[in-house]
């Protein structure tokens, strides 16, 4: 390894430490800002998990909200109806999300391209209808209030700062795990599938199994995001299972830069900022999101973060 690589290593560590320090200091900036960052981080987890499927495995999924929603509903329903602590709920939520990703993925990975997109969307809409119809458990379109946030060694998550730090920890954990995964043998097989599925099969890889593993891991992390969302809101409604949320996540991934670790985080930030800033001026905020998206697809194919990686310092490039 050359000395410039070692320099890059130092720069990367320093940057990571600065980001973690900045994240930890966010509650100093007041409740409103803290809540905003918490929301961004929850959706960043969701978008990063989707990027594993879209950006790294090369499959455009339009049903990722299913796994976010299943977990959020599991956490909230277990809490409200069974009085179970949010911690157990979170564990159950992640397991449920991974399990449903396994079942849904089992069918979806048999196809690719547009059929894959349609099938993932169909399955997630199926879960959406269940949530709408099963009023006694889910509260239907009114949503399900009454979730009590758990405490963490005596610190209640009702405290905005504690809740925020917990979400930030979940975000850092997800970022770190996905980065390790991408650099691992398993991650390299996913990238291989994205680059050339036919050749992967010709050299002996069971491509469907790799796609399914990617789908399940992405589902599990979306489940972590969903559980944290339930903690954050203490309320769930059917919106979080709707395909519109799946579409939002695809926008976040593409705006930020598909096939990069940090891109979806930037994308989630941009998307939610646009939403909050523009929706305070006009009800038609989605139009402006659309304009930004079209501009991005026309002039910035690699996404905002993709451009930074291309033009920025070399040590950043390992974010792919």
């Amino acid at each position, binding site marked *: 390894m050359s000395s410039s690589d070692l320099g890059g290593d130092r720069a990367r560590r320093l940057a990571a430490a600065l980001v973690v320090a900045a994240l930890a200091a966010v509650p100093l900036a007041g409740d409103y800002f803290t809540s905003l960052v918490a929301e961004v981080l929850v959706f960043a987890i969701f978008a990063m998990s989707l990027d594993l499927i879209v950006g790294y495995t090369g499959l455009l999924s339009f049903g990722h909200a299913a796994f976010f929603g299943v977990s959020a509903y599991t956490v909230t329903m277990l809490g409200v109806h069974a009085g179970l602590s949010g911690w157990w709920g979170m564990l159950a939520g992640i397991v449920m999300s991974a399990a449903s990703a396994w079942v849904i993925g089992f069918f979806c990975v048999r196809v690719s391209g547009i059929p894959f997109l349609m099938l993932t969307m169909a399955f997630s809409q199926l879960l959406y209808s269940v949530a709408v119809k099963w009023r006694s458990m889910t509260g239907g379109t009114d949503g399900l209030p009454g979730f009590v946030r758990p405490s963490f060694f005596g610190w209640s998550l009702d405290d905005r700062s504690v809740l925020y730090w917990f979400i930030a920890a979940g975000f850092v954990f997800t970022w770190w795990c996905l980065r390790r995964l991408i650099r691992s*043998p*398993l*991650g*390299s*097989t996913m990238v291989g599938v994205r680059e*050339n599925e036919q050749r992967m*099969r*010709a*050299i002996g890889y069971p491509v469907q199994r790799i796609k399914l593993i990617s789908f399940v891991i992405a589902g599990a992390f979306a489940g972590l995001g969903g559980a944290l969302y339930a903690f954050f809101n203490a309320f769930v409604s059917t919106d979080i299972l709707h395909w519109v949320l799946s579409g939002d996540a695809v926008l976040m991934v593409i705006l930020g830069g598909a096939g990069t670790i940090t891109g979806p985080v930037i994308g989630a930030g941009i998307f939610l900022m646009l939403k909050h800033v523009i929706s305070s001026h006009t009800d038609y905020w989605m139009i402006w999101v659309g304009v930004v998206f079209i501009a991005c697809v026309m002039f910035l194919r690699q996404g905002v973060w993709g451009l930074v990686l291309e033009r920025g310092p070399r040590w950043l490039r390992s974010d792919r």
Partner: protein
Amino acid sequence: MSVLLRTEKLCRSFGSLVVTRDVDLEVSRGERHALIGPNGAGKTSLVNQLGGQLRPSSGRIFFKNRDIAGLEPEAICRLGISRTFQKNNLFRGLSVRENVRLAVQVHRGRPYEAFRSTLADRALWDRADELLERIGLVSGLDRRVSELSYGEQRQLEIAIALASEPELLLLDEPTSGMSPAETDQMIELVRGLPSSLALLMIEHDMKVVFSLADRVTVLHYGEVLASGPPAQIQSSERVREVYLGGAH
């Protein structure tokens, strides 16, 4: 020499179009077998059936006495048949080294490990470098494949196919689109492959065929027109008529 691959009445049709008709083909261990025939004779379709990319309509394919007809490509690769493609079919966005490492990884690594860096497994990288050296690529291995010249990409095709340590290598027009100098280099490369490795190669360039093959099979409209040692094929009237002396 013992028989490694044998097809029995292999047929494949698309609707009323028959691309493979009752093909009986034999390849022995270590044999260098060339498959020739005019465009549309069904050469690539035949190789696709051997490699699992195309399912035969009927007939059987025995590899080491096991019927492999209709198996998935990944299963066929694991049994010991590897292939290259007529059009370069590589991981274009990845580095040259990574292209070969991926192929080595599935053959001898543990591809599902998620908590270790690929950089840590030196043995895989070393093996990839060794394969690349064998096909004559020694510098600029960290370049993306899309930055390689066309001829280098053709060579890389072979390095990837060799990674699974096959007993039978299917080469689909290894010299297609190459300059005369590159073609000579490719002949040397193929000649230098281990003699225990059986080759079945589709080739249009007669110079390549007659300088490498021990046996030649001529396909015409999906059927085997003739099969035998190169000298016999060269002197066959029927082969001359449809192929060697004809339009080509």
